[in-house]
């Protein structure tokens, strides 16, 4: 048997064997390590924000510090954790294995993407300590404030620009890989639905990110040369900036959620021992979500001063998104029906995902409808909604995938009881933290303030206590995974008895992924 890729001889010794690697598995792990580190920072910032908000009044931060912290929390969580979270880490590691490729199509561009990502992250962090101090605009960088504030916007925006470039290159790389490097017999309809979701995600990364890139570039140019694209004093239109920002950032929401959907779609058949229900519909709905994602960005701007015609059209189009998302949820439920269910941790996280994502999705409709959106816009309702979708959806999907592929990546088994206990804490803490926000928002508490009226005290206290329980769940989960990495039992090659291709090689896989070129003769979820 060949040695695993961990023990293979690399071109450079030690740490350089990692940061100059071209092996997609090592790149995936580099991404995993870096995104999880950023996640830890983001979580800490979130916890301190919750601590400040435990009851009304100013406790720890000045208003300006609070502005900087929520900006940083948003930028880190969105650009440095969720967007690269699943596609670049798990996608990089798993997708080539699932299609039976030896590596991605452009291994050098792959490691370049990671380099750009780290450079972008480092520059964004540098912006905190240099120039006019940490950015205080929120992660949306709305004009005209972002072109007038004295804080260090240009540098932070440039960091995000590099991260965007990295994301685009990853998309290009994965698309080429899926088109060109599938193993013999791996037809489009034999690909796993995780790979399908990565495929759809890559298209969004490729076609939406350049719009963000140019928008951010225009901000930098505007700040440094006073060109006047978005400054009303020079004839510019701030709403145009919002359009361009959301032309990227709405599709980006699907960059975050689609791979998580793909992950749970891969998990469900394995733990119910039956073929996925509605394979073609799930695959097609991934592409449909990617497409419809371009039609609905205006629903972020219902109170911005956009024309009524546009508001009505965007509201109408927004409801279309519910169709492909609904197709997915119904197919997942149908796949569970009459399956021989094994309630292992990955499935438990998956069920939590379906529950939380459904709440997130349904509260999204409240904001997609023009009349109610005007009412809840800019309140904690929206904060609750996007945390349900982003953390409850993308985050829990990521955790599910982390547990499901942990034996594949490390060759070890984690402690099942601890994993379930962590999931329990996460689920309880999560709902206490973010469901309170729906209540607060509905009662009218505005977002992005460091303080609030005393009448909002109750739910805020519940939310803060929830944040501690959530943090405890995260600590247990990561303790379990890290501890098992060193002390876990050997997993064997295919502990879940899964049928897809990535489990047909050794765990962890050798450098070339498969000892012999695999030939595919059946679908990814055919267990009998």
């Amino acid at each position, binding site marked *: 048997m060949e040695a695993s890729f961990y023990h293979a001889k690399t071109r450079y010794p030690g740490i350089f064997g990692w940061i100059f690697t071209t092996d997609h598995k090592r790149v995936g792990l580099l991404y995993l390590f870096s995104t999880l580190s950023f996640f830890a920072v983001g979580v800490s910032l979130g916890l301190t924000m919750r601590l400040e908000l435990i009851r009304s009044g100013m406790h720890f931060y000045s208003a300006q510090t609070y502005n900087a912290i929520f900006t940083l929390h948003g930028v880190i969580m969105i650009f440095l954790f969720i967007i690269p979270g699943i596609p670049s880490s798990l996608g990089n590691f798993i997708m080539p294995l699932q299609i039976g490729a030896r590596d991605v199509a452009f291994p050098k561009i792959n490691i370049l993407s990671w380099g750009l990502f780290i450079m972008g992250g480092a520059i964004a962090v540098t912006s905190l300590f240099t120039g006019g101090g940490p950015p205080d605009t929120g992660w949306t960088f709305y004009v005209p404030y972002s072109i007038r504030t004295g804080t260090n916007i240009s540098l932070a925006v440039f960091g995000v620009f590099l991260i965007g470039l990295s994301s685009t290159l990853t998309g290009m790389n994965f698309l080429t890989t899926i088109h060109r490097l599938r193993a013999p017999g791996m037809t489009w309809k034999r690909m796993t639905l995780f790979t399908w979701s990565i495929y759809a995600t890559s298209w969004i990364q490729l076609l939406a990110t350049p719009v963000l890139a140019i928008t951010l570039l225009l901000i930098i140019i505007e700040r440094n040369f006073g060109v006047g694209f978005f400054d009303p004093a020079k004839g510019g239109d701030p709403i145009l900036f919002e359009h361009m920002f959301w*032309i990227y950032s709405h599709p980006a929401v699907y960059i975050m959620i689609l791979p998580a959907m793909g992950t749970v779609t891969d998990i469900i058949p394995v733990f119910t021992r039956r073929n996925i229900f509605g394979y073609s519909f799930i695959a097609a709905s991934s592409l449909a979500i990617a497409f419809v994602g*371009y*039609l609905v960005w205006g629903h972020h701007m219902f109170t911005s001063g956009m*024309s009524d015609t546009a508001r009505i059209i965007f509201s109408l189009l927004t409801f279309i998104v519910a169709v492909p998302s609904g197709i997915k949820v119904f197919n997942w439920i149908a796949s569970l029906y009459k399956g021989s269910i094994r309630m292992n941790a990955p499935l438990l996280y998956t069920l939590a995902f379906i529950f939380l994502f459904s709440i997130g999705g349904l509260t999204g409709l409240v904001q997609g409808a023009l009349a109610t959106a005007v009412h809840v816009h800019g309140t904690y309702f929206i904060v609750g909604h996007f945390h349900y979708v982003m953390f409850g959806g993308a985050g829990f999907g990521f955790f599910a995938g982390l547990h499901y592929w942990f034996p594949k990546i490390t060759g070890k088994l984690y402690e099942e009881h601890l994993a379930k206990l962590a999931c329990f804490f996460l689920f309880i803490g999560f709902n206490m933290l973010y469901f309170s926000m729906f209540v607060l928002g509905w009662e009218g508490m505005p977002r992005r303030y460091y303080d609030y009226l005393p009448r909002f005290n109750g739910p805020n206290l519940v939310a803060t206590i929830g944040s501690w329980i959530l943090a405890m769940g995260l600590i247990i989960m990561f303790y379990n995974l890290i501890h098992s990495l060193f002390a876990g039992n050997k997993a064997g090659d295919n502990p879940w008895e899964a049928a897809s291709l990535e489990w047909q090689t050794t765990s962890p896989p050798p450098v070339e992924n498969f000892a012999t070129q695999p030939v595919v003769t059946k679908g990814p979820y055919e267990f009998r």
Partner: protein
Amino acid sequence: MEENASHHVATKTFVFVWIALLCLTGLTIKAAQMQMGEWSMVANIAIASVKASLVLWFFMHLKYEKRLFKLLLFVPIMTISIIIVLTFFDIWYR
């Protein structure tokens, strides 16, 4: 290896395309100078699109590529069209 079966395009073809592009450049300047108001812009964009298609089709070899490449090209063109049209629903009616 069949993918490498590249098509040899005659030099003559390229030169003809180049001459056509130069003629269209002359035409577009003429169209602009006719002062047709909004229609000048429409004519100019139409001519530019013909020129761009010639470059894509011949210089960039799209004519000789597999069908996949031709189909894929519609994706960014469609995306950019959707983005511009939807944004204009705001601008026209604001």
